[in-house]
């Protein structure tokens, strides 16, 4: 016994124990709980009841759940490409280590540091129909005011743009690191060969950024897929289900309808999608 105690100190396993306890309790057990609870029915008041495959059968007919997955993909479809190109453009403009770049990088990065609740509140206020600055500017330009958050398509576009605002500065930094890692000689050689600025970018720099491009793309997808707070604050999923993304739909089943078992079954699907994304990210990082 004494020997064993000594050896977990000696091989330093003892240092991992506290972290391991928290990891098991709050990461591993919840993952298992998703699958176990998915076969039960629980409203927090009555005892947990085993219901077999009922939740999964109901899920197949839950048109709004599948709609929420579709909304998630639409949301990613608008924000991810915009984040990609905008952060790439920003990185190209700001990758040099001069004073101007350093100051302006901070402005674009800052939204990522702003709490999502506050960011969402600020956007909601900016886009408000009659007190928002944006509609005021439109009216000054002689245009009609727009229902940014009250109309289905507009609302989805608005929350996607707010997501771009949050994430593009962060992705810009990944691109800047990538750009700074490209040896300058490559570009110089291309210039000597008579290439213009755009040719240097498209034929020399962009292909060399291959890994960075992939990383930015997948990490953006991972971030946008789990976006919850911003949308919860800006539209609470509305109007109707127009901006109810998958995590928000699961949240509502669990915490406004108290269908914990059913929400667990839905979580399993959402978790599976997140896992596929996570494994892809780890792959890409390894090949980096």
């Amino acid at each position: 016994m004494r020997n064993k105690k000594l050896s977990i100190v000696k091989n330093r396993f003892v240092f991992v124990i506290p972290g391991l306890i928290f990891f098991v309790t709050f990461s591993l057990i919840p993952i298992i709980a998703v699958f176990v609870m998915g076969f039960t029915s629980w409203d927090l008041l009555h005892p947990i009841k085993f219901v077999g495959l009922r939740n999964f059968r109901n899920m197949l007919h839950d048109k709004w759940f599948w709609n929420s997955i579709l909304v998630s993909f639409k949301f990613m479809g608008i924000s991810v490409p915009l984040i990609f190109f905008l952060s790439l453009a920003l990185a190209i403009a700001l990758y040099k280590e001069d004073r101007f770049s350093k100051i302006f990088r901070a402005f674009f990065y800052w939204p990522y540091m702003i709490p999502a609740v506050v960011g969402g509140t600020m956007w909601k206020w900016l886009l408000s129909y009659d007190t928002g600055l944006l509609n005021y500017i439109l009216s000054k330009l002689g245009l009609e005011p727009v229902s940014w958050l009250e109309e289905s398509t507009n609302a989805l576009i608005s929350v996607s743009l707010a997501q771009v605002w949050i994430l593009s500065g962060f992705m810009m930094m990944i691109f800047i690191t990538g750009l700074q890692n490209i040896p300058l000689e490559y570009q110089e050689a291309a210039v000597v060969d008579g290439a213009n600025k755009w040719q240097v970018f498209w034929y020399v720099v962009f292909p060399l950024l291959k890994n960075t491009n992939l990383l930015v793309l997948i990490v953006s997808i991972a971030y946008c897929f789990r976006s919850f707070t911003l949308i919860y604050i800006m539209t609470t999923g509305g109007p109707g289900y127009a901006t109810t993304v998958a995590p928000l739909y699961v949240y509502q089943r669990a915490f406004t309808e108290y269908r914990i078992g059913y929400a667990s079954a839905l979580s399993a699907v959402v978790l599976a999608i997140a896992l596929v994304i996570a494994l892809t990210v780890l792959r890409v990082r390894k090949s980096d």
Partner: protein
Amino acid sequence: MIKKTFIIFLTVIYMLPVFWSVVSSFKSMSEIYNYPPTIFPSKISLDGYLRIFKDYNFITYLNNTLFVAVIATVITVLVCVMTGYGLAKGTFPGKQMLNNVMLTTLFITAQIMMVPLFIVIKKLGLINSLWGLIIPAIYTPTGTFTAIQYMKDIPNELLESAKIDGANEWQIFWKIVMPLSKPLIAALAIFSFTWRWNDFILPLIVINDSKLYTIQLALSSLQGQYTIPWNAIMAFSTLAIIPTLIIFLLFQKLFMRGLMAGGLKY
């Protein structure tokens, strides 16, 4: 020149939501609902700020948030450094597998795990307790990943020579590893504090009692009340970003570079 115009134009757009909120927070209750709106307040009014302190318990929320953020940060830093050390310098069997398993959860975050996380927290009796915001968030894959990377760079010879000098494992950890990890500890503390300050998911599922609201949860729930004027909400928002703004300005380099080295946000 085109480049600078493009950047300045985008900066203006990026700062628009913040600008509009901050100027709105200084408007009086009647002016904030004016149509058409005024851009700058015609007279600077502190009405919104006075209200959140007097009518909307800002101080209580601030205390709750600081309690959670400070305690969680201390525990998170200690646990992360220990785990990172064990996973980087340990010789126990199954180390590599444990490494991989712990890092796979990097992208399985609270947003996706809300329901099962709630079940575990409820079973542990932590619902409606500030500890329910602290304990579930102590293990962070990002923090652990950062700590492992950092610990790998500590030379083994240093640990070996201390052992030869007769130090035991605990002495090595406290007297050699901890002092060498000051930059890591600082980074983990800053990140952890920011995450806890900004967190919304855990408070949303754990806290019901409005006396235990954190700043983010309070700001969200105030918007559900029709009686609260928007100048107060904007004042609330403005105050809610100040601590992280200060941290960001002080440690800008760490955030903008450190994140790349240490992987991705929790």
